[in-house]
């Protein structure tokens, strides 16, 4: 959605990430940067669409650290800047973040950290909030889509007042929720960039001790501002039987629990929007009016720990105070939160039954449980990754020396499962496949003889695999890196990257050639079309066999979903029912049971394979795997 021309005051339905983007536009930002990552990608994606209208420079950076560094430069030069990243991306940016705290910043700079509780689309479910305490930076946590917009706008003022970056934590259930948002006016800031540190060299970290002390003063000032922040509020009786303290996504779930259980008169909710540093007086005031406290928050007991720390320092104020939360086991310490988990927690603390129609619930679960099947994820019909992994699987078997594959982060991570023949042994952090391959490739002196392979996507290659590749060359490691070049950051929504020749705002730009870059390191590079199964398998065998040094195979084919937007199918596929021997063929249903393309299905009535015409993209690869030549490629009608 184009969020710029939307008129103020009127309510519009916005996605959480769009609301954050709108808040940034209202704050008059001039600079936005990020590396895509679920659930954060739509923030910069939305801003990229309005870059011209709102006079903002927007970029997809090669990784999160560069994104933060670039945005900090804008702040130094007096231009407000926003950076967005997922929780794993924060780890990449941390090196810089932990140091920029000392010199501090100039124009408002806000770092949005989007966490993925439950790891719905991540390789961990880390809680990013402790980074605020660790780095000593202020932390905001919006609870609603409206607040996401309002808080983002305010975060720039806060950052500018304190002269340090402001952190804001979102979660999937906010970033990917939609809600009605009342829009505000945009600040009419004169965007003029000039680098003029005052005093000279003000942005050095030295003198360290003095600047560390100044940082502490800034955090004390943030605490003071937070004491009266309108983003913190209490609703409930004056002396509640139970006080719920909550932040972010926990607030709606807590509200729902209190409403569903009809406890409005006995349970109060203190909702905190500014969670680090803790507004201590506000929290103490509410703690003093109750004997039971339940802390509701998503992932780590961050708020819970900080409140207990505060109580530890003020013990004499309390006669009796019992805490419930993650430490007591009332709120789970892993996985996503939801209203039912909070309803259960409140019920357990107060010994109250929830009104559930158990007869219906058990019948519903029994009846539907017998009928529904799980939906396993798979590569899309026509996905080049399926073809690449098919060849890789065959090559490893033909080679027969126990070769294995280190994985990485992208659509191809799905090859941890049956859609990629369970080929990937790891899926840890960006670029880690190549990094670990470096290590395996140096174990020969200990009798290690297995071929080592690593895969990474084109965007992941630029993000983090390059230093590992250089390491492999320098230290003469022995492995094959397979770059799956599908021409986009497909997993997160097809964002462009340095190899695509297009910028975030759609302008043409020189593209960085994968093979040119690799060859410049003295690496032997081969390029192959994954749809040519025979050539891909043979090249993989050759590269594995060669041994000694680092080899790169670029498997290049455009993402099927991207291709479908502009091009027609190459072939019209059909199964020749006279040739398909079904279960009587020695292939044991290789096409429908093993190849697992959603476009190719088993027809139980006809007892043959069948093309699902609504799903098939006409890539033609399956024709080459059928031993009976029963799958036919025909020229697609123009």
């Amino acid at each position, binding site marked *: 959605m184009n969020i710029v021309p939307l008129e103020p005051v009127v309510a519009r*339905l916005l996605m959480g990430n769009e609301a954050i983007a709108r808040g940034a536009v209202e704050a008059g930002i001039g600079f936005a940067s990020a590396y895509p990552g679920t659930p954060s990608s739509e923030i910069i994606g939305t801003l990229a669409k309005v870059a011209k209208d709102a006079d903002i420079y927007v970029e997809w950076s090669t990784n999160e650290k560069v994104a933060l560094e670039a945005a900090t430069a804008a702040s130094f030069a007096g231009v407000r800047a926003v950076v967005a990243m997922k929780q794993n991306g924060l780890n990449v940016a941390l090196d810089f973040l932990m140091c920029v705290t000392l010199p501090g910043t100039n124009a408002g700079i806000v770092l949005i950290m989007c966490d993925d509780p439950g790891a719905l689309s991540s390789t961990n479910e880390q809680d990013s909030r402790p980074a605020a305490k660790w780095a000593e930076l202020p932390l905001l946590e919006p609870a609603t889509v409206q607040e996401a917009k309002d808080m983002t706008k305010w975060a720039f003022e806060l950052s500018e007042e304190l002269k340090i970056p402001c952190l804001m934590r979102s979660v999937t259930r906010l970033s990917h*929720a939609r809600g009605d948002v009342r829009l505000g006016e945009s600040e009419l800031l004169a965007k003029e960039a000039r680098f003029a540190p005052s005093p000279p060299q003000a942005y050095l970290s030295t003198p360290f001790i003095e600047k560390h002390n100044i940082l502490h003063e800034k955090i004390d000032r943030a605490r003071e501002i937070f004491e009266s922040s309108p983003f913190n509020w209490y609703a409930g009786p004056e002396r509640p039987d139970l006080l719920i303290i909550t932040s972010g996504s926990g607030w709606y779930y807590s509200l729902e629990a209190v409403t569903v259980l009809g406890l409005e008169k006995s349970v109060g909710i203190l909702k905190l929007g500014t969670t680090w540093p803790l507004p201590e007086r506000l929290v103490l005031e509410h703690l003093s009016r109750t004997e039971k406290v339940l802390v509701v928050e998503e992932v780590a007991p961050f708020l819970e720990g900080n409140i207990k720390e505060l109580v530890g320092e003020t013990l004499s104020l309390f006669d009796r105070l019992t805490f419930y939360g993650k430490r007591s086991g009332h709120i789970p310490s892993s996985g996503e939160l939801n209203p039912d988990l909070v309803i259960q927690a409140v019920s357990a603390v107060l010994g109250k039954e929830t009104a559930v129609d158990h007869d219906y619930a058990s019948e519903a679960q029994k009846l539907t449980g017998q009928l529904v099947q799980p939906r396993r994820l798979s590569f899309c019909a026509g996905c080049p990754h399926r073809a690449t992994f098919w060849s890789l699987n065959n090559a490893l078997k033909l080679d027969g020396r126990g070769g294995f594959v280190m994985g990485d982060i992208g659509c191809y991570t799905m090859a941890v499962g049956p859609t990629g023949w369970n080929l990937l042994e790891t899926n840890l952090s960006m670029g880690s496949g190549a990094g670990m391959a470096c290590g395996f490739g140096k174990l020969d002196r200990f009798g290690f003889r297995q071929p080592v392979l690593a895969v990474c996507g084109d965007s992941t290659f630029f993000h983090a695999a390059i230093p590992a590749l250089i390491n492999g060359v320098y230290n003469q490691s022995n492995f094959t890196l397979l770059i799956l070049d599908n021409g986009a950051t497909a997993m997160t929504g097809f964002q462009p990257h340095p190899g695509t020749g297009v910028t975030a705002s759609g302008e043409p730009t020189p593209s960085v050639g994968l093979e040119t870059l690799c060859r410049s390191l003295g690496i032997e590079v081969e390029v192959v079309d994954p749809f040519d199964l025979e050539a891909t398998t043979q090249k993989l065998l050759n590269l594995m066999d060669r041994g000694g040094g680092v080899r790169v195979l670029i498997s290049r084919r455009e993402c099927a979903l991207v291709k479908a937007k502009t091009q027609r199918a190459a072939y019209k596929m059909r199964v020749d029912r006279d040739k398909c021997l079904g279960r009587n063929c020695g292939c044991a249903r290789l096409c429908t049971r093993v190849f697992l393309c959603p476009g190719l299905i088993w027809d139980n009535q006809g007892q043959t394979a069948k093309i699902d015409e609504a799903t098939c993209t006409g890539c033609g690869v399956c024709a080459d795997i059928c031993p009976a030549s029963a799958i036919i490629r025909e020229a697609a009608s123009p």
Partner: protein
Amino acid sequence: MKAKGDLNVIVTGVGGQGNVLLTQLIGQVLVRAGYHVTIGETYGSSQRGGSVMSHLRLSRQAPYGPLVPYGRADVILGLEPMETLRVLGQYGNRGVTVVTNSRPSYPLAVASGMASYPTIEEIVDALERLSSRAWLIDATDIALELGAPIVANIVMLGALVGAGLLPLTTEEFEMGFRESLSNERLDLNLKAFRRGVKEIEAGAMTDRPAAEQLAKKSGPAT
């Protein structure tokens, strides 16, 4: 407790059926009509054959959170029958109303011949036992008739609105289409929407031969 007129709607289906866009469209029309709307989407795997579920919660008073608690859906709009059953098992209750597409989209385990898909009789039986009212709509067939399988979701929207399950009229939705769709797409979407409304007016649960008996018995199933 929930205020009068507040509604929990769950739209469910599989990736590629236009679930997210459909829910967004419903939400936009409701917001324009002055409702508070919150939508929670679960679509981690939307483009890869996974289940996609959107929770839409509307209220005149104040916005709700993005997730409907278990057993508290008022309306389930299913774009795919197995997904409808999946949601019914978790979010259904004795009062829930269901409008579901009849056309299956096979999970990989079924497509690869390792598992079987429930029969139409089993689906109808489950709908009757677990809902207060249910409509089975041949939305994909209708969309194919109109020449564009992708508008099955708009046929389903027509059925939902035609059944009076949202606090808005068909006119308000048609106005929403006019405001948000380009001219070339408007005509097709209006046709699909009106066909969905008509399906409800005809009161047919399904016209598939296998379920004829059940269909006659049930109109909208009670």
